[in-house]
């Protein structure tokens, strides 16, 4: 049977996997636990679903625990999520008490496992208060913040900060997302899993079937943006860029794919505006896909000639990574983590306006050679830097660094 690591070795090379083994050997016998609040859905669960088994394959005992609570608990944590990203909405005291009580209850359930672990990773704010209830803990505890904390709503951050300050270290995805902490703040960008449904190689027949399903003409160029209908993703700017480019490339088709029915009234308003802007153009396909339509999204990205992510505000932008892994040049907004991935003329183009996006669409649509060259470079860039194996290496390095607090240089073996 092929192990996960063998499968990754076929993609990234045996030397990369050998390096993981060498790092992991230094951690043999350690016990690691990850804690978050959902087993399925969302980027954190997706990564843990692979990171945990890979850690075990490397010979380090690793468990994944999930805490859960009442609807009020999730109401509160959703409020945390929004507030930490800058949404100025206070959280009622009553919900904060529910959050604290849920953490206290879950701490009792998980106490034996967490107190005896050598390293505990607590993901995001949901389980962040667990640490307070573990006075007998023997290991190092790390708060892994997947959220952009650069401009938090201050009252909520003031409330949460004392909980996360007590950790031995924290991890953020980008330096721009960091708040000052009284401990070491490690930087580890996220990654994509090349073996997941979203990113795995597909047969041409499957890509063709998706084209047929959505009425996309295979003989004409197609561009796409895969994003929820949110103002920060600038879907109206995408439509405007498409219209500007279509004057020069009349056959151009645009696919905008996002999640289906949402309980977010703002999202519905944006979708309505997008539909109005697209009215009468049969070459624009607005697709509302179910949350598990990973293979469909995979096929759409592969069917596209280039991929847009014209955000005006963005976290890391894993949809950019996914598109690049499929060998597509990306035209991305000049914000957040997109800047780390998109390099002009090398992996795509950074743009600030619909006009800028239109210009780059024209350039790439009419320059097939450039499009292929940039796409190929984009794929290699992701292979080197943004696959799960690199993520794993950085977790292992961090775990080793934590075993030697205060040392800048750690010589092992």
């Amino acid at each position, binding site marked *: 049977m092929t192990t996960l690591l063998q499968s990754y070795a076929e993609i990234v090379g045996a030397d990369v996997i050998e390096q993981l083994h060498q790092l992991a050997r230094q951690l043999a016998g350690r016990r690691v636990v990850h804690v978050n609040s959902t087993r399925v859905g969302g980027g954190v669960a997706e990564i843990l679903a692979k990171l945990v088994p890979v850690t075990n394959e490397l010979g380090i005992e690793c468990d994944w625990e999930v805490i859960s609570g009442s609807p009020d608990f999730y109401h509160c944590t959703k409020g945390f999520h929004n507030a930490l990203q800058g949404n100025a909405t206070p959280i009622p005291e009553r919900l904060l008490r529910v959050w604290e009580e849920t953490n206290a209850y879950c701490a009792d359930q998980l106490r034996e496992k967490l107190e005896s672990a050598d390293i505990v990773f607590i993901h995001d704010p949901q389980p962040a208060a667990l640490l307070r209830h573990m006075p007998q803990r023997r290991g190092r505890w790390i708060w892994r913040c997947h959220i952009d904390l650069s401009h938090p709503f201050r009252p909520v951050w003031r409330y949460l900060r004392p909980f996360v300050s007590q950790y031995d270290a924290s991890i953020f995805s980008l330096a721009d997302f960091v708040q000052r902490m009284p401990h070491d703040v490690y930087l580890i960008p996220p990654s994509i899993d090349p073996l997941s449904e979203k990113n795995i190689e597909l047969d041409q027949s499957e890509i063709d079937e998706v084209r047929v399903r959505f009425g996309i003409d295979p003989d004409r160029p197609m561009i796409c943006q895969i994003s929820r209908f949110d103002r920060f993703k600038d879907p109206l700017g995408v439509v405007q860029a498409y219209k500007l480019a279509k004057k020069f490339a009349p056959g151009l088709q645009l696919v905008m794919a996002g999640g289906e029915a949402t309980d977010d009234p703002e999202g519905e308003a944006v979708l309505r505006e997008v539909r109005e802007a697209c009215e009468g153009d049969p070459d624009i396909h607005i697709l509302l896909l179910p949350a598990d339509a990973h293979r469909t999204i995979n096929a759409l990205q592969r069917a596209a000639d280039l991929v847009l992510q014209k955000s005006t505000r963005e976290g890391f932008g894993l949809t950019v990574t996914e598109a690049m892994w499929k060998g597509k040049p990306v035209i991305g907004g000049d914000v957040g983590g997109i800047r780390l991935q998109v390099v002009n003329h090398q992996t795509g183009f950074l743009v600030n306006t619909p006009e800028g996006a239109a210009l780059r669409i024209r350039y790439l649509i009419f320059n097939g050679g450039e499009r292929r060259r940039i796409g190929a470079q984009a794929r290699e860039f992701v292979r080197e830097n943004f696959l799960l194996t690199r993520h794993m290496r950085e977790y292992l390095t961090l775990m080793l660094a934590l075993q030697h607090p205060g040392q*800048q240089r750690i010589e092992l073996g």
Partner: protein
Amino acid sequence: MTESFRIKDCALAEIATGSRAQNLRELRDNLEHIDTDSIYYHFWGALLRPRFINREFNNDFAEWARRGLRDYRLSERIAVLDPTAYPETEQLRRELIELIEERLEESEHVPWARKDEQFHFRRSKIVVFDTGIELSRPEQLVEAVPAMSLGSVFYHFIDARRREPRGQNDFQAWLGGCGEAYHGLCLQLGSIDPFFQSLPELRRQLSDGFRNWFGSAHS
């Protein structure tokens, strides 16, 4: 006979210091106090972190002067700074501050970056581990170097300069102890400029250098 050459590997853990600058004066002020590890990191660390391989600038300060401050003149001046020319990072710090102060004096306005383009000072911890591979004869480098990880290349060629008293790389240090026969090869290794190369390119150059040397009359 000299000791054998043990191939080591390394990985960097990147750490945010929490210090940041939004304009050139803040950059200068931070540089006065920031740990030398951070300065070292901003000159060399980019080699081992996610960055496009053909980067335009060879250090983070020059890149920020260009992209963050849009100060092309300063960017070019900082880009020319060669960290290998400074045995101590402290000297590199002084030179960098000197360039910035010169620029502040000749500018009518202090250059500012957008709020979302601040310079974030970072540093790193380096974790070094043994690969278990040991070379007893110099000609074994011909096969060993192409198979090295990029972490090993960084450790033996870049990081070595901080460890070796004369700022040599590990290959030079080892071959230098293997006898006069390798003097020419040591000179060749010393002439490779690591600052303008990516690690894969550096590995290729080293591999070519060893293959050519040992494949010719020298072997």
